[in-house]
């Protein structure tokens, strides 16, 4: 499970969000909403451990998190199988068969990833998430630039993941097609900047 307490994070040296708290139990999904630039990506990267938090705590071992941005880290010159086997080896999981099956990629396993259609690529990206074997998925804009069918596929995969006791933390500004997910609007957590020249230590810059 994941619990976030009083998290504050910054982008480019400026505090962006503060006092963000939420918890996620097994089988739950949480969607972060908010206008562009409100700090969704920053929050996700902080939770994933890519950047340090200004304050607060993220109580999930980083060992439980699989992070994915909209770039999937797929290598075009490697085949579907090679791509997945690589990530399986990195995460120390065995067997990519289940992921191939679930994403209906078995027939494409030996095709180079650069020859896949956009939807197939997306399926490969999702298969990568399954291959990691991690319970907590942290997804940044997972459905951006996808057609309706792919969005539905994405919803089905996340649902299956949740049904197996997984968790998902997602950021988006469009509809994900996951009505059962809880929604957290980040707008109220916008960090209040100190008054200019208030005499704080390094806040003198702000």
């Amino acid at each position, binding site marked *: 499970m994941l619990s976030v307490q009083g998290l504050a994070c910054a982008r480019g*040296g*400026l505090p962006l969000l503060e006092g963000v708290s939420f918890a996620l139990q097994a089988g739950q999904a949480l969607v972060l909403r908010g206008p562009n630039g409100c700090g969704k990506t920053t929050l996700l990267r902080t939770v994933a451990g890519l950047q340090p938090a200004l304050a607060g705590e993220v109580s999930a071992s980083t060992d439980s998190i699989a992070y994915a941005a909209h770039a999937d880290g797929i290598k075009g010159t490697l085949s579907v199988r090679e791509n997945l086997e690589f990530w399986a080896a990195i995460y120390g999981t065995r067997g990519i068969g289940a992921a191939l099956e679930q994403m209906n990629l078995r027939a494409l396993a030996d095709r180079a990833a650069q020859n896949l259609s956009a939807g197939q690529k997306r399926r490969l990206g999702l298969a990568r998430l399954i291959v990691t074997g991690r319970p907590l998925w942290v997804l940044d804009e997972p459905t951006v630039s996808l057609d309706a069918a792919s969005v539905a596929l994405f919803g089905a995969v996340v649902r299956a993941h949740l049904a197996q006791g997984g968790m998902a933390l997602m950021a988006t500004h469009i509809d994900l097609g996951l009505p059962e997910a809880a929604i957290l609007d980040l707008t109220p957590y916008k960090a209040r900047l100190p008054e200019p020249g208030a*005499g704080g*230590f390094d806040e003198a*810059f702000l």
Partner: protein
Amino acid sequence: MASFWEYANPLKFMRVTDWLLPIVAVAAVVVTATGLIWGFFFTPDDFRQGATVKIVFLHVPAAMMAINVWVMMLVASLIWLIRRHHVSALAAKAAAPIGLTMTLIGLITGAVWGQPMWGTWWAWDPRLTSFLILFLFYLGYIALWAAIDDPDTGADLTAVLCLVGSVFAVLSRYAALFWNQGLHQGASLSVQPGTRMDWAYKAPLYTCMLGFGLVFLALLLAGTRTEIRARRMKALVARERMA
């Protein structure tokens, strides 16, 4: 209670340097002018090097500062990496162009001096080579600062570069020594090998060294003030955009 680290507060730094900078600047001009005028007009010619000996009053202080500035940048970078005081990182940033200029002065005065003495503008002598390499390190450091938008990322990356660069600069120095035993006289304070430098030269030389140190300090304070303002300006603009 009044800890040294308080000066790492940008506001306090600005307040203190507000009155300190003019004093340092005036002192820098006075001391440097005294030393150089003394050296240029009122020192005898050396019996072997003739009037060229007067170049020592520029060459040695500049060369000394070229190294000292890098050491100062190294210390400032370490302070930034360990204690994360922004003023420290900005001071390192402000120091680099001064160090670059000092290195350049050292190289140019050396060439102008070397021409009549050794009959060549340039020699691949370990000392000269080391300074040329130091010049490249300064260039790289400044270029890296200039290439990065985010101020904290820039501070972090340049600080690591400064650390790693220092190790390699020292290695290069030994490599250059190993590679070619040179023409350059050994100790910087003896004009001729074996004989001690006369006080007639030493006194103005020390004055010039102090003067160059003060010039560096004045420019450093001025530059750091500018960098603090620029940093604040950037933060304000970013803040405006976010609001």
